[in-house]
């Protein structure tokens, strides 16, 4: 009975952590889907969301909602600048160059934040208190519900955007075939910019809503980014349910691994699963295989 209780808690905690990964994974997938770029600086967008909110709240003394809006807006602008200054100037970029550039950008952003706001960890007050909520013998915090809620909203938003707006459809067209998209009059450059902007916004939003739980500092982005990327790969880099399921599975496995096997090897378990998926099903857990065209 006690074991059952524990496992319930492991699963619930895992789902809560997993939805964080899912949200970050979604922001990875948005850029990947329209550009084929894996943005290694994605974690820094998440970090910026949290750090900027705290800055607006504590230093500018804005109310919480305004602080969040400022944080997301500023991060979005940084995403835009990043694309303009670091991605756009590259002609005929190879994946290799893009990996190196985005790694460089992540180091740069982290360094700047460290210099501007110091190295201390900071906490954001929870949006709706910290009284635990009991579900089937396990407990959750109200902040977890915020995370679930925002994740669902972001998925719905992505769906609507990609399936029902001109820009969204254009971005999808770019992901299928850039040359063809260009031929039918879609400005591929603009779509790449768009995807960075949207992804920065989603990433920073994730950063904001998780900050009350995980706290934030200049270096939180690295691990969160990696985990988000794992989630996205498990879901086959789709910007929909696959990535969310990937995130939830990753979170749950991690939590079960920490609770039942070994807490020290928790991350190793997560990366081991990532490797297995890459080896066996590189197209993700939920997608059908496709042949690469030459």
């Amino acid at each position, binding site marked *: 009975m006690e074991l059952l209780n524990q496992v319930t808690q492991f699963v619930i905690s895992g789902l809560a952590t997993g939805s964080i990964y899912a949200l970050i994974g979604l922001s990875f997938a948005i850029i990947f889907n329209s550009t084929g770029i894996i943005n290694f600086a994605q974690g820094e967008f998440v970090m910026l969301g949290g750090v900027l909110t705290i800055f607006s709240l504590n230093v500018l003394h804005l109310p919480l909602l305004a602080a969040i809006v400022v944080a997301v807006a500023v991060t979005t602008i940084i995403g835009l600048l990043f694309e303009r200054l670091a991605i756009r100037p590259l002609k005929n970029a190879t994946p290799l160059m893009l990996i190196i550039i985005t790694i460089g950008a992540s*180091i740069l952003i982290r360094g700047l934040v460290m210099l501007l706001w110091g190295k201390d960890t900071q906490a954001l007050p929870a949006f709706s208190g910290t009284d635990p909520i009991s579900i089937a013998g396990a407990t959750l915090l109200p902040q977890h519900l915020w995370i679930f809620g925002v994740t669902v909203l972001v998925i719905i938003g992505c769906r609507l955007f990609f399936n029902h707006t001109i820009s969204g459809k254009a971005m999808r067209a770019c992901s299928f075939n850039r040359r063809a998209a260009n031929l039918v009059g879609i400005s591929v450059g603009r779509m790449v910019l768009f995807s960075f902007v949207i992804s920065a916004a989603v990433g920073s939003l994730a950063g904001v809503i998780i900050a009350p739980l995980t706290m934030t500092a200049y270096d939180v982005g690295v691990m969160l980014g990696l985990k988000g990327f794992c989630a996205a790969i498990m879901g086959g880099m789709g910007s929909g349910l696959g990535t969310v399921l990937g995130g939830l599975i990753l979170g749950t496995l991690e939590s079960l691994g920490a609770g039942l096997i070994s807490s020290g090897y928790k991350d190793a378990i997560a990366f081991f699963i990532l490797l297995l998926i890459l080896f066996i099903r590189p197209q993700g857990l939920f997608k059908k295989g496709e042949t690469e065209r030459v």
Partner: protein
Amino acid sequence: MKSDRIKFLVFALVVLLVPLPLSGGYLTNVLIFVGINSVLALGLNLLLGYAGQISLGQAAFFGLGAYGSGVLTTAYGVNPWLAMVAVALCVALFAFAIGFPVLRLKGHYLAMATLGVGVIVNIALNETVELTGGPSGLSGIPNLTIGSLTFDSDLKNYYLVWVFALGMILLSLNLVNSRFGRGLRAIHDSEVAARVMGVNARLMKVQVFTLSAFMSAIMGSLYCHVMTFISPNSFGFHFSVELLTMIVIGGLGSVYGSILGALLLTLLPEMLRTFQDYDIIVYGLLLITMTIYLPGGLVEGIPALLRRLVPARKVTEGSDA
């Protein structure tokens, strides 16, 4: 062919003579690590610059080499030279085994998989406390000895490390200018075309991956005997990225570029002394600007710059006359 030989001989001569005016000072110590980093960067460059396969987990092989030698010599009293060879072979075998599934992946997926291998190895070094001493590190590793000669001073270690480094540099130079090197570069340019030409791309990628792991492991062993203390955070993701930065700055696909990059980045903290906390930003900026404006690295950039300057001067001289 001939000029390549002469270039290497000049380089080797410089390497062997450099410590003399330094008289065992602090710089000698830094240059030991330049030697180690040069070979690590070179290993990564063979993989990334020549064969076009990225690895963000190079530090793992370096760490396995260091810990393998460290543990075998301290806990089991194995002869350090024997340990070095045995460990390097084991690490190479490990790389060979994981190479087949890992190198089937391309681009971002390959980057992520190698990163994953790096993270897992680092966690393993941290968690196997009984063996490795865990996060607090492993101390009391003996210096290397040959007969009655103990490598316990900076000068001796300098020659120890650089003799190994020069050997590996020479072998790498031979390799890249041979049938094998041509195959690697062909894979880099167009894997499909290379395979249609009968190049066994899959095997060659794994072979060069194994070679770079072997080189890293040897350097890891040397590192542990030079330092006599090792801890897992020297072998993390951060260091893999530092190696990547070295070859991007020095020059992808250039043996000497790897060495130039290692030299600059190992001395960089020295040059950035006035910046203190800013060096992390300089790293980031260097990675971005070099990739955008000088994708060939400094080994290509400096001659190009000189070429641009020299005719310019001729023109001005001409106008003066």
